[in-house]
């Protein structure tokens, strides 16, 4: 599934435009044509990752590392675009001088889904199997735990624990997902005790839901890859 299409042939910003970030992508990654890679630092993309059109990677403040099996949806912005003033007037050296001392790597681990138009600022660490939904904003230095989910339009600063869901909008509300088997609802237990009926069999651990979700994601990615290949061959 060698569907790598690095945007080397789409040099719309060849001479005077912003610097193109050095891209180190796995051969099995699927990268759309008009993904923007800008900045002095490199971008690393793992195997099986799908990057949708018009996603933007800005590496002015540090390298970006995307792990295996991620999905980065369209118009997602990873990293921060350069300040507009310096972009127009003085292109490269001044900015490098500014940002190099506090170089911050943006890490996106395995099987992360990043929704459309979401913003991941530099220095963010997103752990494996996390989900960032559409229009979410992950501020600088945030840390999203594994299997966490950030709902759409949420804005995260700081840390989101493992298996946590941030929902609502803005800072949002948080809740911890069931990972292991959970105690049965007290309403059911009371009912069983009062009605003198048997307590229903214990439910499986909440983890199965997450496993199922990841499996579906995996399938989706495979199908997408299969759909894309014939197009590329033409």
């Amino acid at each position, binding site marked *: 599934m060698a569907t790598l299409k690095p945007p080397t042939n789409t040099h719309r910003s060849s001479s005077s435009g912003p610097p193109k970030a050095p891209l180190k992508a796995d051969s099995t990654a699927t990268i759309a044509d008009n993904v923007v890679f800008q900045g002095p630092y490199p971008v690393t993309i793992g195997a099986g990752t799908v990057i949708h059109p018009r996603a933007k990677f800005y590496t002015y403040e540090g390298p970006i590392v995307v792990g295996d099996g991620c999905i980065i949806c369209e118009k997602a912005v990873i990293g921060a675009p350069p300040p507009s003033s310096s972009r127009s007037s003085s292109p490269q050296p001044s900015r490098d001088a500014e940002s190099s001392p506090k170089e911050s790597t943006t890490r996106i681990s395995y099987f992360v889904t990043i929704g459309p138009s979401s913003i991941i600022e530099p220095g963010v660490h997103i752990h494996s199997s996390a989900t960032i939904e559409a229009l979410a904003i992950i501020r600088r230095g945030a840390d999203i735990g594994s299997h966490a*989910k950030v709902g759409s339009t949420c804005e995260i600063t700081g840390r989101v624990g493992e298996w*946590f869901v941030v929902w609502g909008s803005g800072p949002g509300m948080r*809740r*911890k997902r069931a990972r292991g*088997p959970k105690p049965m*609802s007290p309403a*059911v237990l009371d009912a069983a005790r009062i009605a003198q009926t048997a307590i229903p069999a214990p439910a*499986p651990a909440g983890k*199965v839901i997450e496993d199922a979700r990841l499996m579906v994601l995996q399938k989706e990615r495979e199908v997408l890859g299969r759909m894309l290949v014939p197009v590329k061959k033409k």
Partner: protein
Amino acid sequence: MSRPFPYTFISCPCADTPVPDPARKRRSRESPQKQSPQKPAPRPSTSEGEKKGTTANEQRDEDDEDEQTFDPRSPRSDFSLYPPEQLLYCEECHQIKCSRCITEEIVSWYCPSCLFETPSSMVRGDGNRCGRNCFNCPVCTAPLAVSTIENATGNGTQQGPWVLSCAYCLWTTLDIGIKFDKPTNIRSQLQKMTDATPPAAFDRSRQASRTLDSLKHPLSSSASVEEHGNARERERDIEHPAPKEDPTAPPMGADAQFAALKNFYRAQIAETSNSPNDHLSSDFGFSSPGALNRLMSLYTSSSRLGGLYGGNKKAKSKPPVMREALTASEGLQIAPKNGEADIIARLASPDCGWEGVASLDQRKAQAPNARFVGDLLPLPVLLRTKRAKRCKSCKHILVKPETKPQSTRFRIRLIALSYIPLPTLCPLAFSSSSALPSMAPTPDLDSLSPLRPIHVLLTLKNHMFDPVRITLATPPVTPGRVATKVTVLSPQFEIGANSDVWDEALQGASATSSGDSKSAGLGQRGVPEAGKVWDKGRNWTTVVLEVVPGTLPGSSAEGGDGNPETTDEDVVAVAASRKDEDVLEIPVFVHMDWDADAQLDQQNLGKASKADDKVTRELAYWMVLGVGRIQASL
């Protein structure tokens, strides 16, 4: 008001009866429908109109009430002004109907999620919630989906446990340790799981009201025990012969407890009411007169005051006193010994934390003892209703939707805009070369300069199939402290019928051009003239209103200009400028009459009607044109 300028509101005449009466009087006199013997009941508005008319004749000099202009600023008018599209029209009363002069009745209940209609007999039992598979997430209120666990992890066998899962916040019923065996009838499965009624409780409460026993309640100390003992102890009979109240009995579920309490207090009210045959008291509780009697007699008989009300009180037995629930089977629930401490300990424990505590919003729809996220149960979707609307005065149906939830059609829908012309307002823009050079090319409606005349175009669009004659009337000066002068340049005009569009198109090119002449006509027509309609189309007519915005009290324009209308006596009250006083709203009285086809019932007695079965109908109402906001200074 909250709408962007310019806006138009129509006043429903229900709020204030003194809508100018000449129109009403005439309507009641001329409209032959009013004399129809089939409708002998006089409409209240009509009779009132007549009455008002006579009083007005008597007191010509002080007919303020009748000729009172509608004041858009009066606090009452907030309740009578509606956007035109929200109003209905009653064909029987020939009157505009707002949401306050209609009654609603529920046509059907349905679940908005599965669009299944719930029979009205089941709505109450289901607690106004969908009885099928529709649930909302107790955490985030998103709809829950039924999904299988096995299917996702293994191969698609469609077997195995099922869960409800929220796609948004990833809550599943596994979070509360619940799974379902079948993908259908989740509600009943859940109900079975959480049904906390003790096995025999239902029978017990049933029998309680039937059998009589002589066992005395240990705590009954009322003097009337002897007389009312039998009745009193009806509900006690089963408890004591049955296994003694188990003090360690587990607490009931909230539903069972509520049912027990309800049964208990219903029995109590029935027994302690003065007239045992009074079934009202058991049904309606304290709201019935019997219950009130009983309450009153509590005071009179238990004190010495009882003697004041005559000697026969003594002969009468003391009324029984209601007691409270005392046993668990009656619904009494004793708080656990260290319940509070347990809850606090749980709150403080690291695995609960802030996230583990249910928020107020989440607890609102849950059982009263749900404190933690782990206590939340999935919520069946609340049902919605389709409602028919009736006129309050004549019970005529105004709106009747299709019963089927899937259909958005209406069987009957008498919206007012099919009967009254739709008013729209727009400012008239002048080029600088026009005759009024002082005017801004496009007046900014959010900041109108005081004392500078502007012209606004009022377009009335007729949706009836008969041409309509319109008479507009405005007070020369708007009511309120900001006196704006308003002149309708052509107060009387006609609007064409809402005929077929094709007819008009076939009439030739001239007609089509006149339809579009609204924008093109600005250049040709130039200056608005008094007595002339500005523009006219197939079923619409545009007239010009000349508006001279008044000055705000206390504004800089006031002193210099010295406008006699604006600087009247309430200049003194300048300091406390009221809210939204700068909003320029013009009350306009619309009187319309048209020749309608006579209805069938009039044809029979149609002597009063005109030839070719035409009846003249009239309608009159106030509307309010929100033109803009007046600037504080010139």
